[in-house]
């Protein structure tokens, strides 16, 4: 009654309340995303968990939060693009399909990261990357390092993949080159992370990361010129 006396109708209050809820939930989500995902992307390698001789024993909760956030952001990015460029009536189906796609992609990334760790593990040992004189890098350390470095880039790759679809000309060219730029940053951050954990010289760290790429590059050139 007091509101009516002030000239405000109940419908206006409902709209205002709903807008406030949307604003609050959006702000909370963005704050959560910024605190969970953004630092792990722009401050790679973050501290914690990357400290000297880190063993990653209690990292499941933290990495799970990071993965969920990265997947959620990827869903939002891919879903929003698909909603814009597809028929609105198909939105529900698109969203459910997108969620499935992104979860599938994330699981694939986790497994792929594990496989990459398996490949990197012996190369690191051969290149002389060690924590101390008698202690070599463990598979757990390699796996978590790779995961922490790669997972924050998932939304970026999701954006590139979705943005390629409507693009043409020079924008398309830039977007097609962007994954390679991201890969370079990932490699650099990975090397820095390994350096932080092991505290060894740069030479074996750089060698361990670049040697496989060098070999692939040589093979690529041979195939190209043959």
């Amino acid at each position, binding site marked *: 009654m007091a509101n009516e006396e002030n000239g405000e109708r109940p419908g206006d209050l409902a709209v205002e309340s709903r807008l406030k809820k949307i604003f609050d939930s959006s702000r909370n989500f963005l704050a959560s995303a910024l605190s969970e995902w953004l630092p792990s992307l722009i401050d790679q390698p973050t501290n914690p968990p990357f400290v000297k001789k880190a063993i990653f024993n209690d990292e499941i909760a933290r990495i799970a939060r990071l993965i969920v956030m990265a997947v959620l952001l990827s869903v939002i990015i891919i879903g929003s693009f698909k909603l814009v460029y597809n028929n609105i009536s198909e939105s529900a189906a698109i969203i459910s399909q997108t969620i499935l796609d992104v979860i599938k992609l994330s699981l694939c990334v986790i497994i792929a990261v594990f496989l990459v760790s398996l490949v990197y593990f012996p190369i690191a040992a051969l290149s*002389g990357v060690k924590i101390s004189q008698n202690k070599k890098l463990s598979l757990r350390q390699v796996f978590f390092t790779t995961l922490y470095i790669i997972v924050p880039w998932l939304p970026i790759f999701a954006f590139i993949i979705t943005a390629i679809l409507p*693009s*043409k000309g020079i924008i*398309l060219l830039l977007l097609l080159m962007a994954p390679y730029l991201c890969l370079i940053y990932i490699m650099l951050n990975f090397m820095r992370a390994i350096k932080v954990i092991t505290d060894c010289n740069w030479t074996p760290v750089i060698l361990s990361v670049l040697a496989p790429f060098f070999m692939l590059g*040589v093979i690529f050139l041979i195939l190209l010129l043959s």
Partner: protein
Amino acid sequence: MHEELELPNRPGLSLDQKVPRRAFVSMALLAASVTAVHPKITGKTINTEIPDLDDNYLIPGPADTLTVYLDEIEKVRYDILRQYYVIFGFMAAVLRRKYEALRKDIDELMRLAPELKVDKNLCRLRDVAAASKNNITASNTPDPRLVAVIKTNFELALIASNQVSREEVKWSASEISPEAIEKIKDILCRIDNLNTPTASIQDASTELSKSDGELTTEIKSVVSAVREAINLLLRNESNAAILKLESAISQLNALDKYKPSKKLLDYIEGLPEDIRIEYAKKNKSVTTPTSTAQELLQRAIAWIKVDGRFPNDQSLPKISGAIEKGQVEFIRISANLTAPVGIRFFTILASVLGTYLPHPTPWRIGSCSFLLCPILFAYSDENIRIQKIKDMFYSIIPSGEFDTDDARTTAAAKILAKIII
């Protein structure tokens, strides 16, 4: 393994001994990888089939084969004019020999009368004679400057004919020996003899160039019709392609009746009879120089009419071999891949670029694969892949002649979209 990893801690092992071992392991890994995948190093040729791709890209279709036939059509121009080029080649060789002799005589004259070396006309005459000797070819007549020099070289002519006293010219009469005067007379006589054939071959060569130009225009028209037919085939418009090919055949048929200009024919008629008879024997004129090209196109039409299917036995005749009715000659492009499974991607890419978007240079293959990988990784839907790959072709560096051709880029994109990474 663990013991090897502990190698740096072994007592008595110096740093110099540790590093080479590590380098050796790295090099061994690199060498093993390269040896494993490179067919030239292993010496193996592995024929593999690609089950996940449409086989059509391996076996040439009518469109691919017509692309190869274009080279055959380009040769028609030379086949028509070949007899004239041969005769011109002979006549040019005769003239070259005469100019070489003339240059030697002028050298001899300069030796007999060293004071003539300062005579600009004589020096110029010598230089032009030498240049003409080098320049005369079947399609390139003597240097036109020679005729001008010969006609305006009055000074030498007057001295030789004793119409002008030696004192009137810039060198001293006492310095010119009788042998030199005789030589000058001889040179001038030979210059007179060279004037007529030089002018004749120059005129005839101009006519031959005109004929060459006319035929080039005609052949371009035929090639254009065949190219249009190829593009129509790539768009699966067979009937329109057949019409274009029939048009090309009729144009080729008209070229069989081609005769060069009367001036050129008169020049040939004016040559000594022994030369004409000799070269008529050596170069039997081809009555239908376009017959091979016409036959290829006719058989291509027959092939298109059976929807580009191959004979069941896969044993297709060679170009010069006996051809059964209904079959068509073709050049096998790449029925078998000589590459291990791991490098099929590059082989396919090179094949597709070579067929649809020439030329498959290493830079083009490299930039194409660089831009193609993100698309293939990102999308699994074939239609999206085709659209994006088509857009991507515009960005290949260096760009190619057909990179913006819609029919060709679509055909290439359809093949590349099927690659599974």
